[in-house]
């Protein structure tokens, strides 16, 4: 049964399914994954849809574990394929050794984390509590992923293309850090054009040694410390260049006296808070980091010259807030409000927090 998939038409889709459809359209060569709520729709969609696309040769394989999945990703990426996996928090924890190997061997690939509340087995409800793990390395050794944080179903789809563009440009693993709500909710989405992501040459890949070149080796082992240091210096240089890829969105920051900082789902909530506050005559703006690594340190530093205080809003115990504080270097107070364990703040919760900070500051000033 061949289905006709129209290109430009807007569709109503779940975040996980939009991401999976975008992956097909991005011409991934392979997907390896293991089921876990709240992201199982990704592999379910792929196993259901790919056989209907006669023009696609995508490999979709349900592995025996996330450990196996990420190592299959390593093998396929090393062999030059455009490859991805997806999981949710506990599964992403299991992948960390493999991700570290992938970062060290400089293999382009996409890892999607549809975050659920932790620690431990936690809850299947949405959370942002894997921010540290995603942005600071996650596994062993000095490395970074490029991290993209979608805030809509549209971005769940668009960022798949963006992720592979960045991964292949920098030979670096990219993570899409989403959450259970974005994965599960349905929204209108205009899908990226099928086949519009061109392939990059990968002369380093293990595709079979030809006479005109030495054998290609994919490894992360550099046993001499001098050599290992060189590899590290090279990686750090690369991460410096990657800083130029920083992306963020600003909402009503031009005249803002108070700045909200939030990513992903929290940023959507804060957008509503901005409206509520402005109705009351409080000049609130929002900065939403789109790349969590690289992080918009510079822009936040600039904004610290303009605002009275910043309020960082997250669905965790306060993780990104550390980066916000690093950005402003103590110039303005950076407050935090968050909920954990799968609980979501309301726009009113954030507004109340703004008002109470405001009051206590006025009390101090009086």
């Amino acid at each position, binding site marked *: 049964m061949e289905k006709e998939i129209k290109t430009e038409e807007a569709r109503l889709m779940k975040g996980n399914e939009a991401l999976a459809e975008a992956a097909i359209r991005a011409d991934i*060569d*392979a997907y*390896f994954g293991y089921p876990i709520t709240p992201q199982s729709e990704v592999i379910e969609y792929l196993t259901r849809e790919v056989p209907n696309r006669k023009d696609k040769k995508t*490999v979709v*394989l349900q*592995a*025996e*574990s996330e*450990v*196996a999945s990420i*190592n*299959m*990703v*390593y*093998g*396929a*990426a*090393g*062999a*030059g*394929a455009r*490859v991805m996996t997806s999981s949710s928090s506990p599964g992403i924890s299991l992948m960390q*050794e*493999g991700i570290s*190997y992938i970062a060290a061997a400089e293999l382009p690939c996409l890892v999607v984390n549809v975050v659920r509340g932790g620690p431990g087995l936690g809850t299947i409800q949405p959370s942002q509590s894997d921010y540290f793990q995603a942005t600071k390395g996650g596994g062993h050794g000095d490395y970074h992923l490029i991290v993209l944080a979608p805030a809509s179903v549209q971005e769940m789809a668009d960022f798949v293309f963006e992720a592979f563009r960045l991964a292949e440009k920098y030979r670096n693993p990219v993570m899409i850090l989403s959450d259970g709500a974005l994965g599960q909710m349905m929204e209108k989405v205009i899908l990226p054009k099928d086949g519009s992501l061109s392939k990059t040459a990968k002369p380093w890949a*293990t*595709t*079979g*040694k*030809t*006479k005109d070149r030495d*054998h*290609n*080796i*994919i*490894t*992360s*082992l550099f046993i001499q410390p001098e050599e290992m240091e060189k590899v590290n210096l090279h990686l750090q240089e690369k991460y410096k260049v990657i800083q130029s890829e920083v992306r963020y969105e600003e909402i009503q920051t031009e005249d803002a006296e108070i700045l909200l900082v939030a990513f992903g789902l929290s940023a959507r909530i804060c957008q509503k808070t901005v409206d509520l506050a402005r109705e009351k005559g409080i000049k609130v703006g929002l900065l939403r980091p789109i790349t969590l690594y690289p992080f918009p340190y510079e822009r936040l530093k600039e904004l610290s010259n303009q605002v009275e205080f910043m309020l960082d809003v997250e669905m965790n115990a306060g993780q990104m807030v550390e980066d916000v504080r690093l950005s402003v270097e103590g110039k303005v107070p950076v407050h935090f409000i968050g909920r954990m364990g799968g609980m979501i703040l309301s726009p009113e919760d954030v507004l109340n927090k703004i008002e109470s900070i405001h009051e206590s500051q006025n009390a101090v000033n009086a």
Partner: protein
Amino acid sequence: MNEKLYLDAEVELEQVYSKPKSLTDVPFHYCPGCGHSVVHKVLMEVVDELGIQEDLIGVAPVGCSVFAYHYMNVDMQEAAHGRASAVATGIKRVLPDKLVFSYQGDGDLAAIGTAETIHTINRGENILMIFINNGIYGMTGGQMAPTSLIGQITSTTPYGRSAAQIGNPIKISDLISLLPGAYYVTRQAVYNPNAVRKLKKALIKSIEYQKQKKGTCFIEVVSNCPSGWKMTPVESIKFLEEQMIHTYPLGDLKVPQN
């Protein structure tokens, strides 16, 4: 001895042996008498003879043979400890017309990587898995492997391996023979030239089967680790012959059914 050699230095010498072309010129780092060297050499002889250097992609493990990629002059990837068969799966699935092999020790394949081993074979991945069973963890300094013999002294079984405490030697080849995905399972060894010739035949067969897309071929090689066993190379060969093969009898465990 060829008298002529002494009499007339200008006569052309007859070359009776050379190292396989598919081995690089990098000297092996293996201990004297180590089985890894022999298996590397035989495998690359097979690559030369079958003319598959351009088609073959290998996966090295974490273990003493971690540097296999320096010696084997084919495209290679180095996998995380235990994950070689998952990495090989990733390669083979995206390059189905290439030939893929994984090369693992017993700690790698039969302890930390057991899940990957079983599921790779259960899926019948069309690859060759080479399993070096030397009954010990060579690389990390001679600790017990799941394949260590009962009574064997290692650095973590200083009083000898006891079945009551830590279980019996695991016979992975016997286990995986039960899986329909396993097409050819054989146990070979490297303790004398005849055994090495048999190993070579098994390697050639496995490559032929892979070309025919038959499923997983699994070759266990009962090997030695003179350093880990704290023996001379000669003593280690004797131990292999007298003790190892007693627990791990040689021969085919599963042959193609036509």
